[in-house]
C-alpha cells in the first residue's frame, strides 16, 4: 500500500494538536493530578498538601471494606458482561435469521445505549421498587420474595440487570453487523453439508464472530467498571449494607461526601490500573483464540 507523508512536519503537528490538547486536558492532566493527590494529604478546602508516600494505598489495601468493594465490582462486571453479551448475541442470532423489517428493528434497538445511566437507573428503580413498581405485584403474590432495599443480592441483581440492559443494545448492533458480514454462502454450504441451525451457529457463525466478540468483551468489562456510577447512584446508593458499593461509587462517596480526596484519588488510580490490567489480560490470553479472517 502507498502511504502519504507530509512534507512539512508542522502541518502534521497542527492537525494532530487539537486531539492531543483534548487528550491532555481531559485525560493526562487529571490522571497525573490523581496520581499526585494519591501520594499526598490533600486538604479539602485547599491550602497546601503534605507528602504521604504510599500511605493511602497501604491503608486501602488493608481495609476490608475496600476489598469488599472490589469484590462486588467484579461480581457486577461479570454479571453485566455475561448477561449483556449473552442476551445481545441471542437477539442478534434471531434477527440475523432475516426477520421482516429487521432494519427498522435494528435502529430501534440502539436507542437504549443513548439513554443516560441515571435515566435508566430511575426507570429500573420504579420497575424494581418492592412497594410501588411492577415487582410490587409479585410481592403481593409471594410475600417478600423481592426486596432490594434490605436484601443485598437482590440489589446487586437489580443493578446488574439495569447495566446489562443498557449494554445489550450496543452489543446487539455489533453482533448483528458481525453476523451479517458472514457470507450467506457459508451458511448455505454448511446446510448442504448437513448441519442444522444450532450446529451451524456453533461451527460456523460463532467462530467467525470471535473478532466482534472479543471487541465487545473488552468494551463491556471496561464499561462495567467505569460507567456504572449513574445506575448505582440512582438505584441503591451503594446499599443495602454496601452490597452494591462498586469501586467507582465508593470513589465518589469517599471523595465528594467524605472529603477524603487523597484516598479517593488513590482508589481511582487503583481502578485505572485494574482496568488496564484486565484489558491487557484479555489481549494477551483471549485474543489468541480470535480468528481474524
Amino acid at each position: 500500500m502507498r502511504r502519504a507523508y507530509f512534507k512539512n512536519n508542522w502541518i502534521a503537528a497542527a492537525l494532530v494538536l487539537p486531539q492531543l490538547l483534548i487528550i491532555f486536558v481531559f485525560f493526562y492532566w487529571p490522571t497525573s493530578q490523581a496520581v499526585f493527590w494519591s501520594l499526598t494529604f490533600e486538604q479539602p478546602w485547599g491550602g497546601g498538601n503534605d507528602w504521604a508516600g504510599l500511605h493511602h494505598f497501604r491503608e486501602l489495601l488493608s481495609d476490608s471494606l475496600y476489598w469488599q468493594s472490589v469484590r462486588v465490582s467484579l461480581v457486577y462486571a461479570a454479571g453485566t458482561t455475561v448477561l449483556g453479551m449473552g442476551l445481545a448475541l441471542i437477539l442478534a442470532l434471531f434477527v440475523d435469521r432475516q426477520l421482516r423489517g429487521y432494519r427498522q428493528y435494528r435502529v430501534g434497538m440502539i436507542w437504549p445505549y443513548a439513554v443516560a445511566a441515571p435515566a435508566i437507573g430511575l426507570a429500573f428503580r420504579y420497575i424494581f421498587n418492592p412497594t410501588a413498581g411492577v415487582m410490587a405485584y409479585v410481592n403481593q403474590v409471594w410475600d417478600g420474595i423481592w426486596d432490594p432495599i434490605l436484601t443485598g443480592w437482590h440489589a446487586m441483581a437489580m443493578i446488574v440487570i439495569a447495566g446489562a440492559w443498557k449494554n445489550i443494545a450496543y452489543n446487539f448492533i455489533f453482533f448483528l453487523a458481525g453476523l451479517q458480514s458472514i457470507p450467506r454462502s457459508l451458511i448455505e454450504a454448511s446446510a448442504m453439508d448437513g448441519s442444522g441451525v444450532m450446529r451451524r451457529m456453533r461451527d460456523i457463525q460463532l467462530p467467525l464472530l470471535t473478532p466482534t466478540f472479543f471487541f465487545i468483551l473488552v468494551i463491556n468489562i471496561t464499561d462495567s467498571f467505569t460507567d456504572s456510577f449513574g445506575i448505582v447512584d440512582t438505584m441503591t446508593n451503594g446499599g443495602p449494607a454496601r452490597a452494591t458499593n462498586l469501586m467507582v461509587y465508593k470513589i465518589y462517596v469517599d471523595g465528594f461526601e467524605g472529603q477524603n480526596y487523597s484516598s479517593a484519588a488513590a482508589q481511582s488510580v487503583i481502578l485505572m490500573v485494574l482496568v488496564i490490567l484486565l484489558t491487557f489480560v484479555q489481549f494477551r490470553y483471549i485474543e489468541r483464540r480470535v480468528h481474524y479472517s
Partner: protein
Amino acid sequence: MADISIRDVRKVYGKDEVIHGVNLAIHNGEFIVILGPSGCGKSTLLRMIAGLEDISGGEIAIAGTVVNDLEPRERGCAMVFQNYALYPHMTVGGNIGYALKVAGVKRAERDAKVRAVARSVGLEEFIDRKPGQLSGGQRQRVAMARAIIREPKVFLFDEPLSNLDAKLRVQMRHEIRRIHNRIGATSVFVTHDQHEGMTLADRMVIMNKGTIDQVGTPEEVYNRPATTYVAGFIGSPAMNFLSGEVRAGESAVALADGSRIALTPAAARAFDGRLVQIGLRPEALALCAPGEGALRARFDFYEEMGSDGLHHLMVEDVPLSVLSAHKQRMPEGQEVGVTVPPEVVHLFDVESGQRLEAGPGAVATIKRMEHAE
C-alpha cells in the same frame, strides 16, 4: 445415483414470478448444463433443487422422492458454490471433512477418507493449510473435494469456474468432467458461459427469462436451435439474422432488398407466404465476388481470430458476419457477395421466434462447418 424430475416448477418473489412453470427430466448419471444469461433463473432453479430456495409451485423429485419439503441435508445433494464458500476458520482437511464430522463419522475413519479424497484432487500436501493461504484453483479443488467426500446422489455446480482465470478455467473444466466420469453421480451445472456448457454437457438446458427454451445435446442445440433466442445465444461468433418472406414458387426467402436466399424445396413448400427470420451462422457462410452468391453486402470491418478471420459486412442496414479461414481484408464500403448454401439456413417464425422445420431433415442438420469457403 439418482434421476431428477422437475415438474411445473415456479418461483415467486413477492409479486414477481421469476421461474414460470419449468419441466425437466434429468436422467441418472447425466451431466446437465443449465445455460443462460444472468437473471434468467438458472441459479434459482439449481438452488431449488438443492433446497436453498423454497419452491413456490410445482414439484421436484430426486430418485423418485418428492423433495419440496425436505431440508437440504435430506436431499442427498452436494453443491459447489461460485465463491467456493470455504469455511475460513477451518483447515483444508477440516473443510473437506466437515460433512462427515456433522454426520458423526469417527475421527480415524474421517481422517483416512479426507486424506484419500484430498489425494484424488491433488491437495494432500495442503491438508493443514487454511483456505486463505491457497490459490484460486486450489480453493476450487477444496470445494470439489468437500462435495466429493459426501458421495452424493446429485452434484450441483453454481458457476464454479467464473472466478478463475481463463487458463485455469479450462483445466478445472476438464477436471470436473473427469471427476464426473469417475464418480458417475448425476450432475447439474449452471453457467452463463456457452463454451463451458458445450464442452461439459451431455445435455444442455437453455433458459431464457424464467422458462426453458430448449433441452438437447450440445450438437442438437447448435444445429437445430429451437428459438431465435437459443440461436443467438449459442455459437460464437453469434448467428446472423435477416428477415424475409418464404416464396414456395421460387423455393427461396425473399428479402426486402430483392435478393433471394434459396431454401430446400420441402421447407419452402411448408411455409409458403410466412414472414420469417433467417438464421445464418457466420461459419456457414463464405465471401465471393460482388454480384455472385445469394447476398449483396458492403464490407464494414475485419477482426482477426487467429485461425480464422471474422468479416463484418452490412446487408442494407443489417450487420452480417462471415467467419472464414480464407482471410480477406477489404476497404470499408467495398461491395462483396455472400454465398448461402440452402442446407445451412435456419428459419424462425417472426412473431413467436420458434423454429420452423418441415419434418425431420427438411432443414438439413449440418455439422459444424469446417471453414466454408
